[in-house]
């Protein structure tokens, strides 16, 4: 591994050094990079099976529009994503391609908006290369582009809001900010950041006679009023979360950049690289202050764009619940890439200035070597097919919680599926929502004992004590026949048992 590490760094360094001679070809390299990024986002879009979070959205879109909105109000996040997904599912069906089509469109749109931002901020060719090298090839970017969840939408809207803020298109800013609030529970932190950026870039808008900034943000806020009572209620609910730790934050940042594409040893280098880049970028972003030219500075605007939502979320996490996870930080990956491009691109290529871009090049290539789109949902499809191949009349599929029921039910060819009828802890799919979504709940003892039972148990760590106790008793005497593992969800274990025994 050490040999590989050395090779990787040298390789990256050599490649960057060669760029000195390839300056006249920078635009071709840039076009190639962006093209590769787009292709890699598209490649294998239907390869991974759905996992719980994706299947929850699919189940919601099976409802009629207004019922869907009302059911979503029982959850923590506003349902803008499901609203966008709803027509796609109704028209194109529930295949992986149909469900992931809107996210891939949004991911490609995000690259285009990022490009527009760089043009509006006057990025030099070499800065474009740095930023789009990261945007095009970072592992998490492929990940989020194929994950049918709200994050691609939030990324596109956050980038759109920034573009409209720096180009003084207030109506666009109102729209994006309003929609950001409807995307996710962390929306207000991005909303507030955009208010700071819009005010900083357009100081004339903070004018008492013509307060454009406040009016536009007030309109966005007013549009959120229908959901405000639900939002405030959800904010007060108990929610499963881990304590805030430095280790947890670093891990979340690492995943928000590389999305689990790097092997362990190289992953440590990835962490070091993120930390080093942030430190250097902060240092370089002080330049406008040194030059006493800090009004409307692109580098400062980009620093706020990348860092401020994180600082807001950190503050909230320290006061209340921890909301810093890879998903919420992943919204900032493109802003970080743009900031790094502006702040870290060396003016002259020397043996010292080339180290950081060289390491990034090496690590991006490594990430590409280890990226595989079909590992995202684990072996869920294979395990479901294994069960399908063995299914006989009278067999029962029994899930500990809805965490496994929702994704497995999309792949298993039987209606004899049930979830254990316990009241689950906050953070798990609640009984009321399960009933509306058509999840069948039952006690194993009440089911007709005929053939075998396949127990599917997602070890979520937040299951109720009663549920764990009952499930432990149920699986006694059974045989483990498979499992589904992925870094973003708890391990799922599948057991088989003859009921007559």
């Amino acid at each position, binding site marked *: 591994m050490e040999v590989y590490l050395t090779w990787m760094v040298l390789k990256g360094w050599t490649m960057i050094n060669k760029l000195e001679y390839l300056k006249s070809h920078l635009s071709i390299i840039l076009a190639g990079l962006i093209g590769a990024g787009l292709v890699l986002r598209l490649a294998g879009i239907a390869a991974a099976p759905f996992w719980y979070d994706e299947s929850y959205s699919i189940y919601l879109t099976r409802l009629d529009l*207004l019922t869907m*909105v009302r059911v979503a109000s029982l959850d923590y996040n506003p349902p803008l994503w499901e609203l966008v997904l709803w027509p796609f599912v109704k028209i194109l069906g529930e295949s992986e391609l149909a469900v992931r089509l809107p996210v891939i469109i949004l991911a490609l749109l995000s690259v285009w908006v990022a490009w527009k931002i760089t043009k509006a901020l006057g990025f030099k060719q070499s800065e474009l290369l740095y930023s789009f090298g990261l945007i095009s090839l970072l592992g998490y970017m492929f990940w989020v582009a194929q994950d049918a969840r709200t994050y691609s939408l939030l990324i596109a809207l956050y980038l759109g809001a920034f573009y409209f803020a720096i180009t003084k298109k207030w*109506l*666009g800013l109102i729209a994006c900010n*309003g*929609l950001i609030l409807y995307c996710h529970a962390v929306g207000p932190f991005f909303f507030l950041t955009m208010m700071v950026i819009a005010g900083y870039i357009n100081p004339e808008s903070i004018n008492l006679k013509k307060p454009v900034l406040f009016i536009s943000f007030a309109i966005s806020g007013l549009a959120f*009023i*229908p*959901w405000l009572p639900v939002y405030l209620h959800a904010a007060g609910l108990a929610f499963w979360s881990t304590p805030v730790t430095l280790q947890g934050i670093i891990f979340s940042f690492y995943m928000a950049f590389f999305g689990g594409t790097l092997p362990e040893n190289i992953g440590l280098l990835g962490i070091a690289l993120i930390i080093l880049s942030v430190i250097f970028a902060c240092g370089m972003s002080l330049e406008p202050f040194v030059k006493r030219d800090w009004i409307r500075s692109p580098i400062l605007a980009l620093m706020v764009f990348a860092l401020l939502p994180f600082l807001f979320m950190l503050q909230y996490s320290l006061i209340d619940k921890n909301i810093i996870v890879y998903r919420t930080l992943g919204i900032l990956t493109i802003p970080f890439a743009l900031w790094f491009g502006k702040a870290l691109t060396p003016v002259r290529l020397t043996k010292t200035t080339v180290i950081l871009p060289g390491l990034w090049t090496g690590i991006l290539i490594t990430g590409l070597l280890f990226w595989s789109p079909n590992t995202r949902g684990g072996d869920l499809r294979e395990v479901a097919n294994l069960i399908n191949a063995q299914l006989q009349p009278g067999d029962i599929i029994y899930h500990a919680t809805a965490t496994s029921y929702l994704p497995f039910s999309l792949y298993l060819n039987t209606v004899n599926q049930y979830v254990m009828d316990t009241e689950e802890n906050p953070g798990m799919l609640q009984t009321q929502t399960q009933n509306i979504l058509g999840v069948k709940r039952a006690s194993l003892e009440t089911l007709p004992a005929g053939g075998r039972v396949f127990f599917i148990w997602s070890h979520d760590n937040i299951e109720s004590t009663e549920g764990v106790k009952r499930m432990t008793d149920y699986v006694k005497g059974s045989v483990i026949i498979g499992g589904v593992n992925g870094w973003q969800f708890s391990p799922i274990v599948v057991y088989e048992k003859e009921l007559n025994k």
Partner: protein
Amino acid sequence: MSILTAVLFVLAIALLFAFLGVVVLRIYYHAKKAKANNQDHTAN
């Protein structure tokens, strides 16, 4: 959540998307106009 709130939610989202649509169309229109002007200058 009442039906009225759900309807208001859908309307608010539709309004925001309409705003976004208007801005995008205006950008497209201005870009097209600028391109046409450039071509005129080139022709002249």
